[in-house]
């Protein structure tokens, strides 16, 4: 498993930041690009190690399942303690129109 070492360019940083709804000032772009390139490069280095070196991959674990039994989750209280703003039991967010996914 080897791949070409990806280079994170300032353009890539901008795109990722936009997807994450983050603001990255123009003058910080190159610093971010450099740091992210090093991180991605490190991951690539790990990927280059042959799988046998880890002693073979263990059997993939099956995700546990639970029975279909409803129980109260107390989300109201969790929201009351954490949500910045609520009205009539609803969460309140800046007005958005459109569709999510």
């Amino acid at each position, binding site marked *: 498993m080897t791949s070409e070492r990806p280079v994170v360019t300032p353009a890539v940083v901008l*795109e990722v930041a936009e*997807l*994450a*709804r983050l603001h990255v000032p123009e003058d910080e772009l190159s610093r971010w690009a450099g740091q992210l390139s090093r991180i991605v490069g490190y991951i690539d280095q790990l990927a280059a190690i042959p799988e046998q070196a880890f002693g073979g991959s263990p059997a*993939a*674990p*099956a*995700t*546990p*399942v*639970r*029975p*279909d*039994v*409803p*129980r*109260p*989750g*107390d*989300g*109201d209280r*969790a*929201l009351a303690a*954490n949500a910045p703003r609520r*009205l*009539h*039991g*609803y*969460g*309140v*967010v*800046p*007005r*958005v*129109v*459109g*569709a*999510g*996914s």
Partner: protein
Amino acid sequence: MSAVESPRKIEVFPVIGLEVHAQLLTRSKIFCGCPVTVGAPPNSATCPVCLGFPGTLPVLNREAVTLALRLALAAGATLHRESQFARKNYFYPDLPKGYQISQYDRPFSTGGSIAIDTPEGEKAIRLVRIHLEEDAGKLLHDTPYDDVPENVSLVDWNRAGVPLVEIVGEPDLRSAEEAASYLTELRRLVRYTGVCDGDMEKGSLRCDANVSVRTSPTAPLGTRVEIKNVNSIRFVAKAIEHEIERQAQSLARGEAIVQETRLWDEKGGRTVSMRSKEEAHDYRYFPEPDLGLLVLDEKWIAEARGALPELPRRRRERLATAHGLAPQDADTLVSARELADYYERVVAAGVPGRLAANWVTGEALRWMKERRVSTEQALSFSVSPERLAGLLKLVESGEISAASGKDVLVAMLDSSTEAAAIVAEKGLGRMRDTGALEAAVAEIVAGNPSQVALFKSGKTQTFGWFVGQVMKKTGGRADPAAVREALTRALESAGP
């Protein structure tokens, strides 16, 4: 293959693929124990897991998988022993975690098909895949409250984490009608299998349509436009129809089709642009690290298969063949599993299949509609299949006429009385009193000397007129054979 003529005379050939989301009929959510509710107070059915609080972990609901398996088996899909959940990342207030747990490159089911009827015969619409995922919450933009400012939206996360299957169809549909047939069949299938209630208005079945057009049936696929937000089969057909026309006109004007998402605006009867490809999301899917692989074993698959009922199209075929039913009647009967069950119970109670079909698809269905009993509620219709059978046996034996039968059915609607008792009480049964029949015949013969004269002069077709008069006189209750016999005797002995 249908072509649509646009006003500018460009012939286009539509290509349509549907993506359908179906809410699974579980009691609790897919990754937490919160109840799946309808109309509960906002956010009352939530917990730290479905609200995406840090440090919480999802645990898969076994029943959600079983239901999804059942649907995949019903569609003849290929099940994968190992599948994986993935995170679909996007920011929206109805998605508390900032990602939706879905399946991406390793869904539990691929392939399969949904058969539809077309004028050219049966056509199989292939499925790309069926996968499991969680629903998002609901945003409320126009609220009924006076104290909610204009510049906010309200969020109810009760729906967040409700289990869904997404059924992705191949672009095998060639017209809006085919798309509507596909949705009708799919809805019938999810209802038959008990996987989903199929209610599009309430949003438990939702449909997005991908529509493109091309100028020849063999040309490469055109640029596709996705239509969202359509909440009935009729509207899906209308939205697609409109979109095909819009694209045809664009091509006629020499414009390129823009890849975009459009919303169906029912009031305006048109689709409106929502976002173009440039603004499209990059979901950055990656394997869900908080869940292991979904591993299916034989036992689990067998369990899902064991719960499969006879599927609607097979049942339609069986009923039509076994009872010699017209295709349209058989189709109506299987439109809901409960209606077909109702019909089969009428037949099981001893009524000939065709007579039962006529009455169930006719009078019984008419009264169910009148009384707002949906076909899914057929078995709780006030006239049980066994009581209807009691009535139909009286019709079949000739004890009462079909017309009287309809009146008796009306009387049965609001009572638990058996048909025979109503017939006896109202005196609707066949006239057994030969004296009364003789008297009615004598009266008709005596009261119509000119008709008698005509008959005597050789106009034998007048005999039918006499039969009709006697039947009328006896309220249709006389036995036609007995009437003929009595009339023949009476006319022979009549003067001159």
